């Protein structure tokens, strides 16, 4: 391995544990062809090595929540992902000693927070993290063009919330960091923004938006779209993402909690459709006179909605362009909650 190290001075050595070798062997032996077996073995070792690095750094990673751990996805895709809970999936592409190029299969061109290239020793005992890149295109990666593994750390920290405001959103506070909706398209979400099903009841979920026209089956969109105000047929592969957050009006107003739901849809053009809804938490109806408003950067109200006596939810829908900022304000009895978003 000395040659490898001198050729790639930025490489970080990571031991391959016996457990990693055993699992890789076990996964490989379940594959139907020799090519798939070798692919799955190397993918598993690369994922384990990256998991080992995360373990050293104290970064939480979850092997079992990764497609690379799942026998069905192992067989049906060329996947070496490692799930970093709450942040997204990191792809860990294996290469073997003596290679300068890393092919990235189309199977993993998106839905990733980044790509780390891992060199696996011939004797399968040592791995080296060679470098990192946040995105890939159709061309293979050249190892010498990669950023050093430290940039992976930067990427991970960039996805973490700067403070805990968003997990305990008190009224009157302004979250210091804007929620980056662009990152949502890569399946990375700020703390506090949870899968819709974890916060909303199935009945509430069924009221959620659908921008789609409905002729394409979508596994996570309800069959009963309430409002399809989107215009015309959509381009290939529009992406729909939605998340919900518990907003606690606790201290000032007794025990009032509501759930804010944000759904975004990115078309292949730069336009992003945004849907906002507010649902009651633990009550059949929203408190009356709750205001949901979208503010422009100048703080002027761009649009708003207000709950009446027995509303089970209120909503707003609009569209914008990548990079635009806006704020969402929830106001009840003169107390307000603000959250900033960037598209």
């Amino acid at each position, binding site marked *: 391995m000395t040659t490898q190290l001198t050729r790639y001075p930025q490489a970080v050595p990571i031991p391959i544990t016996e457990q990693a070798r055993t699992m890789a062997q076990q996964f490989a032996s379940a594959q*139907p062809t020799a*090519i798939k077996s070798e692919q799955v073995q190397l993918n598993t070792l690369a994922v384990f090595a990256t998991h080992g690095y995360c373990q*050293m*750094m*104290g970064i939480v990673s979850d092997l079992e929540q990764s497609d690379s751990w799942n026998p069905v996805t192992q067989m049906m895709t060329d996947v070496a992902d490692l799930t970093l809970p709450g942040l997204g999936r990191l792809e860990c592409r294996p290469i073997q000693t003596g290679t300068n190029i890393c092919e990235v299969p189309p199977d993993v061109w998106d839905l990733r927070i980044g790509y780390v290239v891992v060199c696996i020793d011939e004797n399968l005992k040592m791995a080296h993290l060679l470098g990192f890149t946040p995105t890939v295109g159709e061309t293979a990666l050249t190892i010498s063009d990669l950023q050093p593994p430290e940039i992976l750390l930067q990427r991970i920290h960039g996805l973490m919330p700067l403070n805990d405001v968003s997990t305990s959103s008190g009224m009157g506070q302004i979250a210091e960091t804007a929620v980056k909706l662009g990152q949502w398209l890569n399946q990375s979400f700020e703390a506090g923004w949870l899968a819709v099903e974890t916060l909303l009841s199935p009945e509430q979920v069924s009221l959620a938006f659908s921008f789609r026209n409905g002729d394409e089956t979508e596994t996570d969109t309800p069959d009963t779209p309430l409002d399809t105000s989107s215009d015309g047929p959509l381009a290939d592969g529009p992406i729909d993402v939605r998340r919900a957050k518990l907003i606690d009006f606790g201290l000032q107003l007794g025990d009032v909690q509501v759930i804010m739901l944000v759904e975004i849809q990115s078309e292949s053009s730069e336009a992003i459709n945004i849907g906002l809804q507010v649902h009651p938490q633990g009550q059949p109806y929203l408190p009356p006179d709750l205001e949901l408003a979208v503010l422009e950067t100048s703080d002027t109200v761009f649009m708003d909605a207000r709950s009446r006596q027995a509303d089970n939810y209120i909503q707003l829908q609009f569209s914008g362009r990548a990079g635009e900022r806006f704020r969402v304000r929830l106001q009840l009895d003169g107390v307000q909650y603000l959250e900033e978003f960037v598209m």
Partner: protein
Amino acid sequence: MSELQETVENLIAEACSHPPGSLKRQTHLTQIIRLISNQLWRDQAPYYQDALQQTWVYFCRNLCEATTGFAYDPDKANVVTWLNAYLKRRLQDGYINIQRQRATTAYPSTASESDGKPLDPIDSLAAPPDIPPLLADVQAWAEADADGILAGTHIKGQPQITCQLLILKRLPPETPWKELAAQLEVSVSTLSSFYQRQCIPLLKEFGRVQGYL
């Protein structure tokens, strides 16, 4: 003090001036690992990599503050000496574990044991059946498509490009994406994006229901 040692001591001081878990702490730890890894004790024991991994975790947890052991004290020893002492203790643990396994495991009296090499327990596992059932199961499920969801899920405006078609084409030995894209006259990225977002979730659901995970 050698130049390298001085660089390492400076990096340690720098790392420890930032809180645990911070980007700067992690960045400096990574740099130190890269610099000193060549100087750690090496041997050929089968459990060496496990001992080494434990050593790096110990290093990261205890370099600046005592988290799982005693914190590193630069006045007592340099960092490599400190880590080698820990690594050798883990290697001893590995050796003792192997002895215990030998004492409690009956091996066939073959040449390999008299060579002093323990048998790899994995080698003695029953060989898996020739054709893993997974392939046949996925194929049967995709062909039958009992609820019609695989044939009904297609690329927008391309009703002929369905999850059923792609899953059957991607069963190993799989048709390469480039070839599929040319056959179906769409781009590779359109195909793979659709496959990732629409078909993989269906496959995973099938796997879950079948108890593969």
